[in-house]
């Protein structure tokens, strides 16, 4: 078919500057033309540069900061830079994980935006050679009193469920938080975890001159063109109709693609030189990055690319973000083996090009050379931009937060349990198949989800965490806390934290205050990671989380994986029987800065100073780890939003227990959010041994009972409530708010 519309000439591009709308600056355009390719780029080439030089693909603004992350550690097999990071878990096995954001698409088209977020991260995992074994979702929405936010929550959850359930990967957890700052800019972060034999490790590399580049999976359509650029710009209500930048997912196709690729990786590893997902910026980013990493060149014939509709230009084919596509590099002469396997799965697989030695990136269409630029100019030569940083005025002269007066602790507890951020998320979690693959040992709702490693004694604990209210108050300390809380969740589940991934959701990098917040949080995260020996092995940056000039709280979501050496050590947050002794591990202060109680009392924007001590955190984690190892604990639960009161209540619900006890803490302190604390329960026969181990780190609070009553005498009052009533409040709140 004849292309009727003619593309602008290089000179017209220079004069009319269409690249500015695609996110490429005048300086970048000139640098590319003058320094990198020595001529004016044509229309297709300009489009390729615009996406490859977008923040979403190049990390040009965030890289100077991301270098501050710590990614060493004895378990690291693959750190950042590939589809996903890889950690050694012994027995020649490895765990693979990464998280990714799909914030902007999920606002425009929440069902497909969230669904394709799941699909994209799964491809990153199996492209490394791993079988995806679990996914988790970290979601943030505006408050549910607005119908739009209820709609976004309902549709995002439905999209995650539709994709994840169909593809057969258990969605084992995650977290959901609500705050008015996410109005118009929800966060949808998806983490996927995979398991592999180390021998199967694959990387995204186009190695070996003459080897074939094979395109696999769904046909290329006009969807998602410039999705990466879309993600690298601030959002406005006008763009809410920008639906063509959102892709549509097909989980059935992805299931076939996963199975077929893993079959090739397992059975024909020797002929598969490299494999990579076509994610953001689709065909151009996957092929150019594979060539860059292998220090090779690539030549492709776009006429061979499977296309959904006729008349697509080179520009459209290369920039399409159609889903469920992979790019493989296969040894010359062995292509048929690979093509036959994909044919058995009824998938398109086509040799579209080959590897060259000269490090040039060449594209042909209709017999014409439409792109001829150095691979390095697309990938490696992107000019980093360390942006100006400025500490926000709100962080000068910060005072300690006031201690709220709590006269009726039972009422306060009920109100906190009904806060959507705290309330049970079962109404959401039960829409996810959390048990397919039959390895899920701890389902969503406890501190961390646990998936056992079949045919071994091992299990993997996993969690996502971030309290953005803390980050807003102090991005450095808040970053430390985010990592620490994730580690507490892993430890409470019986695991040793072994590594993290992250989704850094921030405002625009050109805003010096946002950029400063990013820098500070990354440093805080890095310091905590080094302390807990949890290297950052992968991650994702989502900046420009601003709508109509208003930024979200900086939200660096931490996804952490822990190793449980023996499934016998799996521990959950619930007290198990009546008569267990309940201890509070860690000291409690008056920490109300950014707390849920502060918010409940009408201080919607957090205020006050955070207190945090990494040494105390590490010591308390060590204690719980040791106690679990010595088989002394019936349960362990990390204290987070809502403090001791909320954690104690949550631990009672599963087995419908009551509690009676006494504490030196005040009514208010029941809801203080002092960090580094756990509650644990111990059988009477083990109390002596536990107390000897814990020393002053733990204090006895009371005992579980089989009564439908919670009674806790405090220094200045008493909390008295029925467990069943607390449970009903906790269990029903979110469902009510969603109606």
């Amino acid at each position: 078919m004849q292309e009727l519309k003619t593309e602008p000439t290089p000179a017209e591009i220079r004069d009319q500057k269409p690249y500015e709308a695609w996110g490429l600056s005048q300086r970048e355009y000139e640098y590319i033309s003058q320094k990198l390719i020595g001529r004016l780029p044509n229309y297709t080439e300009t489009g390729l540069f615009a996406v490859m030089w977008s923040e979403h693909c190049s990390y040009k603004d965030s890289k100077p900061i991301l270098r501050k992350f710590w990614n060493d550690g004895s378990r690291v097999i693959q750190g950042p830079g590939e589809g996903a990071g890889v950690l050694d878990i012994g027995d020649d096995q490895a765990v693979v994980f990464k998280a990714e954001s799909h914030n902007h698409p999920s606002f425009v088209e929440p069902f497909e935006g969230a669904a394709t977020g799941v699909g994209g991260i799964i491809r990153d995992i199996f492209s490394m050679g791993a079988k995806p074994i679990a996914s988790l979702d970290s979601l943030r929405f505006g408050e549910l009193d607005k119908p739009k936010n209820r709609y976004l929550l309902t549709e995002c959850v439905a999209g995650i469920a539709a994709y994840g359930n169909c593809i057969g990967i258990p969605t084992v957890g995650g977290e959901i938080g609500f705050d008015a700052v996410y109005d118009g800019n929800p966060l949808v972060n998806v983490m996927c975890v995979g398991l592999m034999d180390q021998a199967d490790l694959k990387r995204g590399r186009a190695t070996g001159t003459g080897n074939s580049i094979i395109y696999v999976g769904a046909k290329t359509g006009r969807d998602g063109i410039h999705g990466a650029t879309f993600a690298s710009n601030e959002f406005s209500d006008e763009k809410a109709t920008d639906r063509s930048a959102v892709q549509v997912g097909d989980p059935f196709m992805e299931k076939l693609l996963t199975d077929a690729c893993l079959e090739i990786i397992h059975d024909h590893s020797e002929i598969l030189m490299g494999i990579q997902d076509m994610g953001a910026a689709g065909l151009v980013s996957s092929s150019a990055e594979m060539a860059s990493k292998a220090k090779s060149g690539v030549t492709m014939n776009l006429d061979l690319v499977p296309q959904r509709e006729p008349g697509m230009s080179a520009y459209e084919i290369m920039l399409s973000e159609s889903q469920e596509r992979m790019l493989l590099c296969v040894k010359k002469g062995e292509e048929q083996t690979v093509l036959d396997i994909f044919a058995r799965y009824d998938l398109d697989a086509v040799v579209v090009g080959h590897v060259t030695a000269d490090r040039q990136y060449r594209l042909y269409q209709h017999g014409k050379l439409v792109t001829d630029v150095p691979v390095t100019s697309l990938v490696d030569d992107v000019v980093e931009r360390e942006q100006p940083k400025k500490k926000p005025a709100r962080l000068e002269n910060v005072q300690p937060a006031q201690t709220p007066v709590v006269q009726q602790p039972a009422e306060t507890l009920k109100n906190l349990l009904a806060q959507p951020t705290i309330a049970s998320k079962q109404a959401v979690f039960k829409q996810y198949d959390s048990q397919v693959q039959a390895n899920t040992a701890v389902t969503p709702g406890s501190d961390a989800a646990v998936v056992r490693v079949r045919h071994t004694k091992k299990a993997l604990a996993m969690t996502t965490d971030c309290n953005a209210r803390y980050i807003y108050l102090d991005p450095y300390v808040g970053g430390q806390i985010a990592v620490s809380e994730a580690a507490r969740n892993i430890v409470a589940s019986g695991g040793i934290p072994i590594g993290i991934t992250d989704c850094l959701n921030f405002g625009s990098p050109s805003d010096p205050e946002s950029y400063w917040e990013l820098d500070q949080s990354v440093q805080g995260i890095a310091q905590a990671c080094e302390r807990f020996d949890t290297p950052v092995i992968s991650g994702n940056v989502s900046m420009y989380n601003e709508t109509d000039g208003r930024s979200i709280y900086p939200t660096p979501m931490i996804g952490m994986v822990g190793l449980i050496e023996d499934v016998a050590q799996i521990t959950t947050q619930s007290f198990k029987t009546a008569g267990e002794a309940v201890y509070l591990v860690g000291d409690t202060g008056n920490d109300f800065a950014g707390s849920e109680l502060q918010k409940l009392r009408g201080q919607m924007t957090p205020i006050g100073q955070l207190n945090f001590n990494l040494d105390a955190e590490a010591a308390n984690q060590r204690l719980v780890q040791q106690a679990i190892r010595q088989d002394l604990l019936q349960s362990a639960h990390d204290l987070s939003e809502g403090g001791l009161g909320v954690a104690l209540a949550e631990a009672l619900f599963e087995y419908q227990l009551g509690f009676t006890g006494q504490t030196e803490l005040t009514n208010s302190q029941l809801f203080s959010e002092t960090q580094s604390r756990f509650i644990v329960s111990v059988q009477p026969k083990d109390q002596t041994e536990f107390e000897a181990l814990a020393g002053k780190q733990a204090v006895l609070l009371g005992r579980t009972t089989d009564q439908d009553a919670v009674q806790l005498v405090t220094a200045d009052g008493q909390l008295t409530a029925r467990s069943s009533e607390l449970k009903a409040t906790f269990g029903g709140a979110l469902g009510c708010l969603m109606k």
Partner: protein
Amino acid sequence: MMKFAVVSFPGSNCDEDLYYAITDDLHEDATIVPHTATDLTEFDVILIPGGFSYGDYLRGGAIAKFAPVMSAVKAFAQAGKPVLGICNGFQILTEAGLLPGTLQHNRQMQFICEPEPLLVANNQTMFTAAFQDQQQITLPIAHGEGNYYCDAATLAKLRDRHQIAFTYQHNPNGSVSDIAGITNEAGNVLGMMPHPERAVEAIQGGTDGLLVFKSLLQAHLRTV
């Protein structure tokens, strides 16, 4: 060894779970058989797993019934040998006409995954003989289209001929008469929405599901 075939369609996702339930936990022989297989006579039991065969884009099981393997499944069932369809497998068996009725969207139009208390309504079948009569058990459910429907005449027949094998104690999806699983009239084909293969080891949260497979094993041992 008793030989189980697990029929895998494109989009099946519980095939490996069933395979492991048979090999690791029942300690019998299992083979994952592709949807293109045409001869299943060497097997003692056919298991049709859960998942989303062909994406279930039209209706659960509506495309899978046309797969090449289905004539072999029908021949196997007609020979009186045991066929067990779980979740999507149940949907496929109703679509293929091997079981009466149909499975509609859940009443609340949402996918539900949770442990579900059930009653063994008939322990006189080759799939349930290892249970006590009216035994209360718990098995996980995970489906979006598990709302069993049949007309009144069919329901009366199901009752008269003791074809209702499992019922829900707290009907989660709107199924007629709380039905969670039914057999055919001859009693050798069972379809059930709950997932016994997800409840075969304590670490999964329960072991009630193993008794379904043990029932099949007992029935088999009586015939050899």
